């Protein structure tokens, strides 16, 4: 097939703006699925995705249209997967920029549009949901114009739900998106833009062929990892996988090559012929770097093996999170897990609990830090306990994310206050017409990990959206905030925090602990400290009296059961020295909302 037979495109949109519905509509319109097979959101495969309305794993579909082959590449929808998004974008020549005209342009629309422009993609703006009674196409149009520089006559209008305007979309894909460039006769080169794991076939890699062709039996090399494998099968998506004889330049499809685990493949890697030593990798490859870490422990210590199995299984499907066994004095054995971002963390935890049935305790998340030691060595810190003593630290750096927040103008004040509280640095403020403002701040990632999104939502009465990208590491006055219970540091509660805010945070943690740790037979001292300096302290007074006055014949069973129940609760507690700490204490520390309400 000639290169100009192909059009490779994706749909970029904010969550819930109708990306999957439009994709399904395109599948139906081009006859790839019949009406009978048509159901909502065919491209999203996981329950969890469907519930959250986001797509985690990119997929693809080949659409025959007007004698051409249109490859629709589905991109992950969330900010934490921005690297994966960028790789998917590199597999395309164009993108449909989909905007819900009842909602207007959102933070992710802007962020993804910028990313697509950077990747050299032709953008086709599409207003969706024009059939909705609340639709304001004029406002959305104005925002597209003011914020992204589109002229009104290039904007398409569709209803993905009813199918109205979908033919125009297909026509625009054919006419406006350029065909791929590449050399069908050159040695093979393909961009690995995604991968998934199949229980029977192992790893399935999703590729965009740039030059040459891939076929069964050939030996390929993954340039970044150096791994060489024989291709067992190549195929296309319709949207179910279908084996084909060859996958040529310009096309998109999958490769099965006897790869056992996702750890052996890296998104963004380049496949080339095993014998081609001169093959050039596609630029832009990065090792995925986890930015957010937390400890994950089984709620009952005996569930550790089950938790391990669940994590290993999940990792087969998502190699972008990392895990290492760790042990905590308070929580026993568990795992230190790294994630691409906060949402990724949340998704992994939910899937772990859902798919394994193991109840888990999560420790306070922290971001990755960089420390320049006084001996000139640079180290990455993934947990507070790895931090060198302060006199060995030359410079302490934390990740900074450029955060774009879109909101109605009346929320600006509240958002600015929030960003300032969270050590944000103002970058700029732009209007997308009279009803939308983009506020850009550089914020420490640590400040947005736990609850920033919730706060943004409440400050904007649900209308605000945000997106962010890592801009780098910056030196900051950070300290290790130690939490001590009866003089013993509780590793699972200690956090790295900014010095200025450490006292307030220390107090919050101590108060949360005071509320959740039951009184015991002795006074329990709770302290928050930096080094040896105590910032906050509280005492849980010893239990003074605990005695059932009456216990006769009829009471015996009932009283015994009451005591047994108390005892059962105690068994589930974790011990630090001789202090029993209930699981809720570890969770209470995560939840800063209650403290804020009082303010």
């Amino acid at each position, binding site marked *: 097939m000639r290169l100009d037979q192909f059009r490779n495109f994706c749909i970029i949109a904010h969550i819930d703006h109708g990306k999957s519905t439009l994709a399904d509509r395109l599948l139906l319109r081009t006859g790839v699925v019949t009406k009978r097979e048509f159901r909502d959101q065919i491209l999203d495969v996981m329950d969890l995705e469907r519930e959250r309305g986001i797509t985690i794993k990119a997929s693809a579909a080949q659409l025959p249209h007007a004698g051409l082959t249109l490859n629709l590449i589905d991109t992950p929808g969330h900010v934490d997967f921005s690297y994966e998004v960028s790789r998917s974008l590199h597999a395309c020549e164009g993108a449909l920029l989909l905007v819900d005209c009842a909602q207007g342009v959102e933070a992710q629309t802007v962020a993804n549009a910028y990313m697509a422009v950077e990747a050299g993609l032709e953008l086709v703006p599409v207003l969706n949901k024009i059939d909705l009674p609340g639709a304001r196409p004029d406002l959305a149009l104005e925002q597209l114009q003011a914020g992204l520089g589109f002229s009104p006559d290039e904007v398409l209008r569709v209803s993905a739900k009813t199918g109205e305007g979908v033919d125009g979309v297909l026509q625009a894909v054919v006419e406006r998106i350029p065909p791929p460039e590449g050399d069908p006769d050159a040695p093979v080169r393909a961009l690995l833009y995604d991968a998934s794991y199949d229980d029977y076939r192992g790893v399935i890699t999703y590729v965009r062929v740039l030059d040459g062709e891939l076929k069964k039996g050939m030996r390929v090399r993954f340039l970044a990892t150096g791994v060489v494998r024989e291709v067992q099968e190549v195929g296309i998506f319709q949207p179910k996988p279908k084996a084909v004889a060859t996958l040529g330049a310009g096309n998109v499809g999958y490769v099965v090559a006897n790869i056992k685990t996702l750890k052996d493949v890296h998104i963004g890697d380049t496949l080339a012929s095993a014998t081609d030593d001169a093959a050039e990798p596609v630029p832009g490859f990065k090792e995925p770097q986890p930015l957010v870490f937390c400890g994950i422990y089984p709620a009952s210590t005996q569930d550790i093996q089950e938790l391990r199995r669940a994590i290993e299984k999940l990792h087969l499907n998502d190699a972008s999170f990392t895990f290492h066994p760790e042990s905590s004095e308070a929580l026993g054995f568990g795992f230190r897990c790294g994630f691409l971002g906060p949402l990724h963390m949340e998704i992994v935890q939910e899937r772990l609990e859902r798919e394994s049935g193991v109840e888990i305790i999560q420790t306070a998340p922290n971001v990755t830090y960089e420390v320049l030691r006084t001996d000139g060595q640079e180290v990455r810190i993934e947990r507070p306990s790895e931090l060198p003593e302060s006199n060995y630290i030359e410079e302490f750096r934390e990740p900074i994310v450029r955060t774009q927040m879109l909101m109605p103008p009346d929320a600006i004040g509240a958002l600015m206050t929030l960003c300032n509280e969270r050590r944000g640095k103002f970058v700029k403020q732009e209007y997308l017409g009279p009803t939308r403002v983009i506020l850009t701040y550089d914020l420490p990632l640590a400040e947005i990990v736990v609850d920033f999104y919730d706060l943004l939502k409440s400050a904007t009465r649900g209308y605000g959206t945000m997106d962010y990208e890592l801009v780098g590491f910056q030196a900051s006055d950070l300290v290790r905030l130690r939490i001590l219970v009866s003089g013993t540091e509780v590793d699972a509660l200690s956090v790295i925090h900014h010095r200025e805010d450490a006292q307030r945070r220390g107090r919050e943690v101590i108060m949360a602990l005071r509320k959740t740790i039951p009184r015991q*037979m002795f006074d329990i001292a709770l302290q928050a400290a930096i080094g040896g300096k105590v910032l906050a302290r509280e005492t849980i007074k010893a239990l*003074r009296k605990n*005695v059932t006055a*009456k216990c006769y014949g009829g009471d015996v*069973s009932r009283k015994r059961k009451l*005591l047994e129940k108390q005892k059962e609760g105690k068994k589930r507690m974790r011990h630090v020295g001789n202090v029993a700490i209930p699981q809720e204490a570890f969770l209470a520390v995560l939840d800063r909302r209650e403290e804020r309400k009082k303010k």
Partner: protein
Amino acid sequence: MTPTVYVHIPFCETKCPYCDFNSFAVQGRDVDGYLAALSEELDRRPPPPDPPTLFIGGGTPTVPRPEQIDRYLGDLLRRLRPDPAREFTVEANPGSLTAEKVAVLAAHGVNRVSLGAQSFLDRHLKTLGRVHSAAQIEEAFRLVRDGGIDNVNLDLIFAVPGLDLRDWLYTLDCAVALQPEHLSCYALIFEPGTEFHARRQRGLMHALDEEDELRMFRFTERRLRHAGWQRYEISAFARPGKHCRHNLGYWRNEPYAGYGAGAFSYLDGERCGNERHLERYARAVHERGDAFVSHERLEGSRAAAETIFLGLRTRYGVRLDSVGERHGIDAQREFAPVVTRLREQGLLRRGEPLRMTRRGWRVADTVSSAFL
């Protein structure tokens, strides 16, 4: 071991707002019908003929009319061999006890009366919803003594909202002045299902400050010890030799046969509870021959833990070796870590039998639950 016998009379003049026992205001109740069912239960599930102790509790066993009291006591004793030395206790309310009723009790060989005095301050009696006055307690006490019953217990309640240490010491002094053989001093418990509990949940009533309650608990022991009563269980104080043998049976986890609505039996290692509802109780007895609605049998360590939990309530404590022998486990080994820890915390004394320290008494639930 021969089981003791307990009989439940679930009627009171009024229901006290702190009480979670199976009891009902007598007004409009079919007392005769209940007594007939009780008699039938004694027929169908005969008590042991030689129980070491008898205990009639409630409710208020002295609320029924004299001839009704005479009838149920007669129904019970008819099935037993006479034994004048046997401890035979009946609970009574100072508000409803009369010379005639005391005479009925004495005629049937009742040799111990437990009077629900609760307080010697009228305003506290009112808070507690009692139907009697402080003066009536003294009258009732004399009636019992004059009726020839020489073993008397007074129930008293402390840690009542609105009660301070001086009020409580006054009540104790009044009780001591009467020179009863036995005193039961209970800290008020807000039991679920009671009116007090509901009031506290709604914020209308507040439990006493823990330190105040603790002070009352300590002063009670000191005051009574000086006056000649020894604490032999968390809430029970006795003159020498006058401890309640029936209740000691419970705390030694010994068997008992219970009759009446809501009564419990503990026979051959199985604890069974009777139906609490009066009509359903009567119907069950009539149709099935018993009114059991709950059954529980503990084995091994759990049974042993229960024996320890009960035994630790008393000053005599428990011997681990005999607990082990009784329940067929190596109790010494099994409970060694718990015992060591509790001793280190100063809650258990060293040596055998296992006994709580003075500090252990006030956190007895914590100590007991360590074994469960």
